[in-house]
């Protein structure tokens, strides 16, 4: 057996490098937990369930999905949510990191405080934000629903009708529910984002900043031309993380808005959840899952491309 293996090795039918064999178990496990589910999802997206079993229906599930009014609406909600969530989180995360990067007292304490939202479960975060704005019974209900403060009828975040869209049927401006969702999601993702950026900022030698100051650079110029280019790789990783969190996160929507008011916070991942667990349409859910995966890849590749262009400049 050993001789046979040795012979095979000599004939290059099996690789003879140690790293190959060491990596093989990992590759096998990845195949089981990633490749197989992907292939199964692709297969499922082309089937339809009948009492007698699965039948092949080609692209029918995709067609039904594209014809569904909720799918088109959800795409709009997803764009609004993703852009707002990523922009707000990156901006606040960067500012927080800049603040924490200053030589101030109790930085460790502030860091511990700021990390609290990250360690709280998503469902609890959503519930907490919901309790703040629940009509009539919420913590801020008295303030928000006061017509004197917010004429003419006060604000009811979870029930106010969405504003008329400015651009055809594209859901912008967003509903108050969507704004709350963006705020709650940002609140939760901010600590990790800030920490990643802070770690990166702390790697920058202070000499660079000081010499740029001597050369006459102002604060904005230091950020724009020194800090951002240096920490760009970290920013890209952070954006990847936020894209995936925003695209695939559904727990906070379930606990915060339940997709409402109406359908105004139903982003595409919520639709996926609803199709699979609510409507028990596993095939359509699989089709949507594949679409989401492709969109994730496109967004990540686009971000990579943009940052390469930025690096080249």
């Amino acid at each position, binding site marked *: 057996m050993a001789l046979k*293996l040795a012979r095979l090795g000599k004939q290059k039918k099996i690789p003879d490098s140690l790293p190959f064999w060491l990596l093989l178990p990992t590759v096998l496990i990845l195949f089981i937990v990633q490749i197989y589910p992907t292939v199964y999802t692709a297969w499922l997206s082309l089937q339809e369930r009948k009492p007698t079993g699965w039948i092949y229906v080609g692209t029918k599930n995709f067609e039904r999905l594209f*014809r569904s*009014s909720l799918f088109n609406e959800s795409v709009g909600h997803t764009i609004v949510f993703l852009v707002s969530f990523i922009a707000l989180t990156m901006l606040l995360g960067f500012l927080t990191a800049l603040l924490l990067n200053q030589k101030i007292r109790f930085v460790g304490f502030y860091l511990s405080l700021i990390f609290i939202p990250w360690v709280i479960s998503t469902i609890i975060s959503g519930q907490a934000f919901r309790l703040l704005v*629940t*009509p009539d019974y919420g913590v801020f209900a008295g303030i928000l629903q006061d017509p004197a403060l917010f004429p003419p009828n006060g604000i009811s975040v979870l029930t106010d009708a969405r504003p008329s869209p400015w651009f055809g049927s594209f859901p912008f401006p967003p509903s108050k529910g969507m704004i709350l969702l963006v705020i709650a999601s940002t609140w939760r993702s901010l600590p990790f984002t800030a920490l990643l950026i802070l770690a990166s900022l702390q790697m920058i030698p202070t000499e660079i900043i000081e010499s740029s100051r001597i050369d006459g650079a102002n604060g904005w110029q230091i950020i724009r031309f020194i800090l951002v280019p240096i920490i760009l790789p970290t920013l890209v990783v952070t954006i990847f993380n936020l894209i995936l969190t925003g695209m695939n996160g559904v727990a906070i929507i379930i606990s915060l*808005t339940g997709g409402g008011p*109406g359908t105004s916070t139903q982003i595409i991942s919520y639709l996926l959840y609803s199709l699979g667990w609510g409507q028990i349409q596993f095939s359509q859910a699989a089709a949507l899952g594949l679409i989401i995966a492709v969109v994730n890849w496109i967004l990540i590749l686009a971000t990579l491309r943009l940052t390469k262009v930025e690096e080249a400049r």
Partner: protein
Amino acid sequence: MNTKSKLTTLLSFLLVLGLLAACAPAPAPTQAPAEKPAATQPPAEKPAATQPPTEAPAEVKDVVTWFQYDAENMDEKANEAVGNAYLRATMPLFNKAFAGKLNWVNQPKAFDKMEAELINLAQGGGDVPDIYELFNSVNNFERNGTLQDLSEWAKAQPWYKDLDSSALQACTGTDGKLYCIPLAQRPQVVFVWTGRFPNGYPTTIDDFLAQAEALKKEGHYAITFFGSTDKGGSGAYRGLNTMITSFGGRYDDGKGNMLLNTPENLAAIRFIREIVAKGYAPDTVFAGGFEEEASYMDSSAGSFPTGLHSWKFQNNMTAPDGKKYDTGTFEDPLNAFKDGELVLAHFPAAPGKTPGCGTLPEALAIPVGAKNTQGAYDFINWIMSPEQYPAFVTNVGGGLPTLKTALTDPTFADDVIIQQAAKVVSESACRPWFGSLARPSEAQPLIMNALYKAIKEVGDDQIEGVLTQAQEEYNAGN
């Protein structure tokens, strides 16, 4: 790389594989191949290898059930406390009655996930339970081939002829097969605080609007209901359906097509819009997450159309006269009923119409692939026995008994809620909300999203367009 190195590498690899295999979960000793559905099929035998040589000849088999209740949850203030306590008390009785033969094992499941989980498991050949608590349409299960046909077996049982025909209908698929055994009916009724309606709950729409206006002047709401799109659009079968059907409306054409754009539905929607616009209902109606219940619990809203079984989940209530029912348990609504603070009523009907009422079954079903079908039959027969049936209907069903003769049982004859509910149902036209729709889980969010838009988001001239769009979208899949 010499031969020795290769051998070492190979051995290391095999060792890793061995470790991985050791970490993998061992196959369950009771696992058996999935069975095909057949009412007369004998239960699957456990693999011989799992039987120790010294085991007694009479093997104790598990009857695995899926209920939304958890016998091990001792929290008296939990939402499901009534059902939890029932299981805790009843499981030992079953195990005693079937000592040496059957052992009841319950796996608690989330009420809003268990349907999808069962269908998914059944399709994938996973471990399904022997008994499944069913409280919605059987149509999804029928479409997915998930449940066994119980028609022949049920007809041979002594209790079959006593079952209410409409309850049996709720367990019957579009193919005419019986997929579950209905134990209770859960009609949609109106919970009314008598203190808010001292002259009785209105029986006409005009009277309702007049009384609602009077209550508004006193700073109260006439009604609260689940009007949100949350919870998978379940608002489509709750209070909204009660109001719509009280105008003679419905969601289907009786032939499997969705039909929303009808004069009756339009009239009902305009009535609900009026309630909302004039502030006769609180904002929480549309907030989701069952927030609408709060204004019923503190009696700031005078009435609450919802499922009869919801009394089990009501607690910490304040009556209009300020009396507190705050044990935090299901005793609160029971005491409020006993004191006459709460009563059940039907919704006021539009002129010439009968009050509407949705109804769903509380039933037991046997999934395809159940390992102990015979045990499941024994389980259902035991629950249907006169000694066990009333307790199940009251504590798990939370509704009306489906056995026609059971209403005279002292348990029900002395139950103020059951007696009032029976009267409400007899005065209403009750039917399952989905009618002839074969894909209720798909229809539910479509209907609810359309109703929400029609009530809250569009002008009067756009209501018909919204309803038509929803029905066309559903019917395209027929």
